[in-house]
């Protein structure tokens, strides 16, 4: 590659990165500023003091919200891994009558937008007396067609001979699933896990509907509360809240980006 072409590419990469990352960097800077500094429109804080962070944990039960978000996200992640891997196993390794029909049933769930079903779902949760509970926030999301297809793609690459060999070795179906299929599919499981955690952590509408008090509220609802309490006054505190909320998912994304990219394209296209 010629030198001038490299220079142009790096220039474009740097400029576009700055634009893309600007809102996050800017929020980070604001979270260290005093009210006066924000009003004067500075880009950098004069000192990096954690006052705003202390304040945001004071104003909101943010620590509780963080724990709730972790419990709910981990819950959905594990639930999806169990439910989807069981279903994917049946689709790949057991041939049975009606498989095509059930497969079609799974596909058809992808055509039903979750928002179109939220009214009856809300009443189901209410009737079960699951408002303000972890199970009400997690259980509806355990079954996932996309996750089942993603795992099915990977399970299909496992040689059939391995299946036969394990049967001859006297391993039960569940033994084969648990001791052979799951361990060799670690990468797909990690991808689906990261995806499930990320999407659940960022979920907004459902937690808004099924929580009415602070006991199980997640950080996303906390942000909404913070923003409506603090409008126009303490933007530094609000941005401190934003940074606390996005750090776990940003870290997860930075660590698992390659995995996620591979897994998502595979699950999507094949």
């Amino acid at each position: 590659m010629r030198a001038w072409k490299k220079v142009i590419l790096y220039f474009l990469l740097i400029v576009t990165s700055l634009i893309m990352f600007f809102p996050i960097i800017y929020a980070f800077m604001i979270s260290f500023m005093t009210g006066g500094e924000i009003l004067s429109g500075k880009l950098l804080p004069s000192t990096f003091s954690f006052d705003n962070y202390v304040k945001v944990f004071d104003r909101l039960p943010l620590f509780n919200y963080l724990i709730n978000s972790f419990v709910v996200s981990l819950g959905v992640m594990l639930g999806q891994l169990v439910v989807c891997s069981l279903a994917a196993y049946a689709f790949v390794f057991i041939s049975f009558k009606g498989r095509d029909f059930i497969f079609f049933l799974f596909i058809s769930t992808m055509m039903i937008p979750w928002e179109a079903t939220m009214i009856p779902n809300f009443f189901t949760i209410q009737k079960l007396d699951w408002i303000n509970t972890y199970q009400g926030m997690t259980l509806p999301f355990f079954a996932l067609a996309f996750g089942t297809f993603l795992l099915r793609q990977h399970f299909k690459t496992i040689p059939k001979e391995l299946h036969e060999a394990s049967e001859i070795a006297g391993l039960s179906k569940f033994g084969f699933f648990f001791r052979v299929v799951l361990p060799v599919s670690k990468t797909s499981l990690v991808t689906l896990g990261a995806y499930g955690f990320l999407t659940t952590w960022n979920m907004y509408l459902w937690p808004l509907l099924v929580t009415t008090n602070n006991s199980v509220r997640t950080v996303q609802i906390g942000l909404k509360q913070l923003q409506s309490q603090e409008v126009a006054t303490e933007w530094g505190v609000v941005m401190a809240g934003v940074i606390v909320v996005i750090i776990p998912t940003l870290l997860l994304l930075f660590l698992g980006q390659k995995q996620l990219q591979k897994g998502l394209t595979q699950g999507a296209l094949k």
Partner: protein
Amino acid sequence: MTAITKHRKISNWKRSSNARTALLYLLPSIILFTVFVFYPMFRTIYLSFFLTDQEGEAAIFVGLENYAYLLESDAFLNSIKATFLFVLYTVPTGIIIALILALLANEKLKGIGFFRTIYASTMGVSVAASSVVWLFLFHPSVGMFNKFLNIFNLPQIEWLLDPTWALFSVSLSTIWLNTGFSFLIILGGLQNIDEYLYESARIDGASYWYRLKRITIPMLSPTLFFIITISLINAFQTFGQIDILTKGGPSQSTNLIVYSIYREAFINYQFGTASAQAVFLFICILIVTILQFKLGEKKVHYQ
């Protein structure tokens, strides 16, 4: 003869045993899909033909009246218009930006991994967090955008309070938020293209633009098609941005369909008309998905 029937009996038994085992593995999914997807979908359609009470129980059968009411209601028609405009503003622009970034990030340069991570970063940002940040950027007096306009002595804009600007502003923040995901998918598609295609083109002395037009875009078409579908569906489902940035206002200019359903159901307690709107949303997304299947088979170049 008896041996054959015996054999058949065994294989029948075996086959049905297979079905029973399979069912055991599929049962959690089937139960959850039934309770949280299929039942509520039918229930939504059912409720759309009724007037409901506060507990969401069907009270009076009204046939298609909820639908007739919606089609005559300015608020609903306005919400449809806003939703389609929003789709138009966000989907094409968002995908073109993500495609450009993915092409840049697919070059083999030192430190490219860093830039990839930056481009993908918005995928780790929640809709609530992003909306709060953009709320600040759009702020009439302390916000970045108006400060910027000020430098050039341009008139200030009420980004979220002016009906002519509000939908544009919400779209801008949405494009930014969705770029990370689209970028990641398109980059994955680019990396799946076989390297030797480029090598032979390079030997023939084909220019960058020729290669882009003749190799990259055709080979990328399944990925692009997939991300277009996902983006369309996502755009129809937008809620968080609206709830935090505009609450559907000003003068309902950003009252997108899901926000409209939410307000009708959980603020006005009109579950019948809200369900009719939800059915409309379902039909929109169904059309997008069916189009994907129909067009996808024909027009897209698969490897």
